[in-house]
């Protein structure tokens, strides 16, 4: 049984979060707190496994709770619930820096959005079940000559948790994640989160990044990450990240299509693409481009995904090599990458 404490100053939010969590028999909401001070007291008192934490609260905000919690004896995992604004993004980034374990955007348009509770439940479970990696492989300074592309949207973050934490060793390729998120800092927070789970170092992309082997990148929201081929002064061929402000595609930015297509032309057959859960049709064209350049294409199987729009858009174009369960994706990616020449 996972014991959860819900901290939020809004009764409305507390009710919704509690109701969502109660849908899972393995989760027990052991208490609620209405502000940070109350929250800290209840952490001490109830010793929950997981705390869901609001940021803007009277008396003591979520950031302060994280700071104070750091010195406490009982250390529950924390899941920040962030509001969907640039300000919220900034605070989320800060929260991750202060040791929050994960974050999630507060539910939007409850009546018409399905699966939010499932995502919350999965996140809470991941917090408890997925072990944090204490030792990291060193980021190799080596310029990557292969690339693994991951595209995901709604329902994607908890899957990324699972996928990245199941790599056992460093991969001899750069891994580029395109996760749809509002801009402002959420992707940086996501990178911080994944960095704690993955044996490989994870960072948010920066304009001009030279892709190195064994490094995971999370596309910065607000830009399209375009992979541009490059030749180093010493003559080694590789890829570079260029942040493009071109208008959103499929109304998202970053769009997986942009990253996938540009990576395919830069890396050719040494490209592996995967699609996880996601709404909409981004990723289909990109997967096709990877296929056309001789790369390997995969999508996750439907039963593991909250939403199957993105994967389906690729399947419709008949360009997918394999459909895999989430659990075996890391192994399969490793196998394919290692079998590639170059």
């Amino acid at each position: 049984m996972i014991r959860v404490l819900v901290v939020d100053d809004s009764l409305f939010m507390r009710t919704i979060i509690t109701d969502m969590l109660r849908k899972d028999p393995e989760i027990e909401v052991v208490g609620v707190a209405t502000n940070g001070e109350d929250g800290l007291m209840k952490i001490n008192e109830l010793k929950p496994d997981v705390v869901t934490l609001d940021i803007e609260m009277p008396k003591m905000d979520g950031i302060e709770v994280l700071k104070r919690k750091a010195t406490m004896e009982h250390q529950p995992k924390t899941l920040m619930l962030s509001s969907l604004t640039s300000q919220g993004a900034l605070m989320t980034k800060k929260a991750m820096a202060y040791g929050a374990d994960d974050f999630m955007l507060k539910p939007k348009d409850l009546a018409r959005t399905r699966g939010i509770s499932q995502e919350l439940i999965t996140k809470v479970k991941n917090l408890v079940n997925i072990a944090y990696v204490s030792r990291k492989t060193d980021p190799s300074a080596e310029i990557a000559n292969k690339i693994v592309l991951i595209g995901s949207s709604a329902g994607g973050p908890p899957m990324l948790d699972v996928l990245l934490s199941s790599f056992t060793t460093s991969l001899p390729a750069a891994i580029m994640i395109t996760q749809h998120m509002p801009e402002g800092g959420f992707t940086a927070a996501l990178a911080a989160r994944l960095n704690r789970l993955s044996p490989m170092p994870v960072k948010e992309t920066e304009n001009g990044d030279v892709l190195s082997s064994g490094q995971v990148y999370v596309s910065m929201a607000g830009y399209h990450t375009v992979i541009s081929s490059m030749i180093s002064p010493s003559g080694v061929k590789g890829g570079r990240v260029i942040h493009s402000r071109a208008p959103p595609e499929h109304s998202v930015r970053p769009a997986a299509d942009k990253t996938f297509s540009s990576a395919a032309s830069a890396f050719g057959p040494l490209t592996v693409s995967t699609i996880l859960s996601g709404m909409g049709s981004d990723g289909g064209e990109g997967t096709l481009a990877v296929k056309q350049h001789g790369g390997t294409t995969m999508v996750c199987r439907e039963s593991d995904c909250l939403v199957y729009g993105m994967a389906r858009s690729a399947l419709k174009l008949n360009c997918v090599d394999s459909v895999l369960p989430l659990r075996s994706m890391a192994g399969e990616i490793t196998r394919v990458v290692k079998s590639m020449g170059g």
Partner: protein
Amino acid sequence: MSEMDAYRALYIAESRENHETIVKNLLVLENGPDEAAIAEIFRSAHSLKGMSATMGFKHMERVCHAMEDVFQLIRSGQLEVHQDLVDLLLAASDDIELMLDDIESDGPGTLDHLEERVQALLDWKAGQNTTGGKNSGSPQPENIAGDFSTQNVGEALLEEEEGQYQMLIRLRDDCDSRNLRGMLLLQNLDQFGTIIQCIPERAIVEDGVFDGTIRLVIRSDAGIDALKTAASVSDVKEVLFGHDINLSAEKAATGSTGVIKPLTLPDIMGAGMDHSPGISKLVKEERVDKSREVKNIRVDITRLDQMMNLIEDLVINRGRLAQIARKFQIKELDETLNMVGRSVSDLQNLMMNIRMIPLSHIFNRFPRTVRDLAHKEEKEVEFTIEGGDTELDRSIMDGLNDPLLHLIRNGVDHGIEKPEIRMKSGKPGKGKLNLIASRDRDNVVIVIEDDGAGINREKVAKKAIERGLITELQAVEMTDEAVYDLLFLPGFSTAEKITDVSGRGVGLDVVRTAIDNLKGTIKVESSPGKGSRFELVLPPTMAIVNVIMVRINGRRCAIPVNNVVEVAGLSVSKIHHIGTQEAIMMRDEVIPLDRLDDMFGKSDQTEILVVLQHQNKKRTIAVDMIEGQQEVVIKPLSSMIGGCRGISGITIPGDGEVVPVLDVNAIVKES
């Protein structure tokens, strides 16, 4: 109730609270900057926006978001609170209320003038940005605006036409494969746009027969950072854009590097985090004001009413059981019933307390009313509220809002004079209006006082004579108190012109009726030139009343203790006859005596006098005997019986007998 319905109800309740907080604090802001108020508005708007997003009420979300943005600026000290801005924000909060009303009646919560309102708010945000309070000329990241868009400000300046850039790219002098580098960078740029013009031409670049400088015009939507990075391949010394080209070309000639350092996103974000005061404040802010905290759960009031009814039944049945125990002399049952009795009365007290809500619940709306009214009437009013935490039963609270509102409007409209008139009489231009609530033993006292002109006795008397309410002779003889009392007569209004405010053809009589219905009293005092004072005395709760049980002609009857001034023995000799009316003389006071023969039948054994008081009038009634004092639950008469003059309700004491409760107000008035 489905899950969504339950959420909707919760949403409405909490949103109303947030809305109230916003309005309350906006009014605080009107009197000058107040950090706590700003922080609270920000948080309320933020919560409202978040909840609305969750519920999918898009219009609500947008209005609140725009408000939040404006307050973000105010909070970080970049926007000053201006009267026009407060007006706009208040208008926006009115919109919020409208939308909430709509949502509450199952509507979609949409707003007709949404775009207009949001735009007006955004204009404030934008307007302040360009005139720039604090940022002095130097281009700063846009995050000042609270919108952490990652767009480089420089981009806007350098873009000569929409999406068209002039670029100058210089390779390092020692670059040994100019053709390769040149080709690569042009290819990279191709990824991001269309190269319209290139000097030297591509073919020449590919041949490597150029001096290492490429000038080009490119059309692209990828932004300046992307283009700069795309062009910055190995061996590139510098990449310049737009009008910087000429300037830097000279610099380059003198050997200085003149490279625009690429402004990366972390730089921008980092800068924002370090320098924007709004953000650091957000974290540091400690909440000290405990009274602002809300610690309660919401229960539908009808459920509380149901519970109250059940408790009342329990009280009645316990009384019955007690009688049975006595009748059959079962000692054990009696003892147990005593215990039950204690629990029941604890439960009853608890229930009463639960039903109590602080007066601030209705008081909070008044500052807005006063403000709007004062603006309209061109008056200056300092409105203070005290004792908002005094609690009253919810059922009384419901009936109190309108009379209070009326009295407050009266205070601004008739009481407080215009500034120039006040100055002439040596008073400060700004009038004072105080609303004070306090607990006085079992009652709640609410006072509304102003330092205005006071009530003009002559005017009131004149009007009353005109209306034929009193004669001229009476007018001269009447005490001030009695004259002021005339104000409460139906149809009386002293306002010389009918304003759309308080003189709407309804006068203070409506107020008095409302207060009467709440079993309360109202009293007015006034001194000319100094102001008026209205005092309301209310029972804290209506449901349970302390009564005196009496018998008249052998029948039982309950009289609320509130209305009883005194109980005395009746010795026949003291009865005087004034015309057909009997009266008694009590401490130099003549009090009319009533015998309630028409209600209870003629009694021969009246031995005791009960002196009743309502408002300032006293009456006395004769009763056979007094059984005692007890707390009872008063139930209204069933609608089938309808109104019954002189009886305000019935109560059922322990023995199960149905006992009428005397309506003292009616009796005092009637006779």
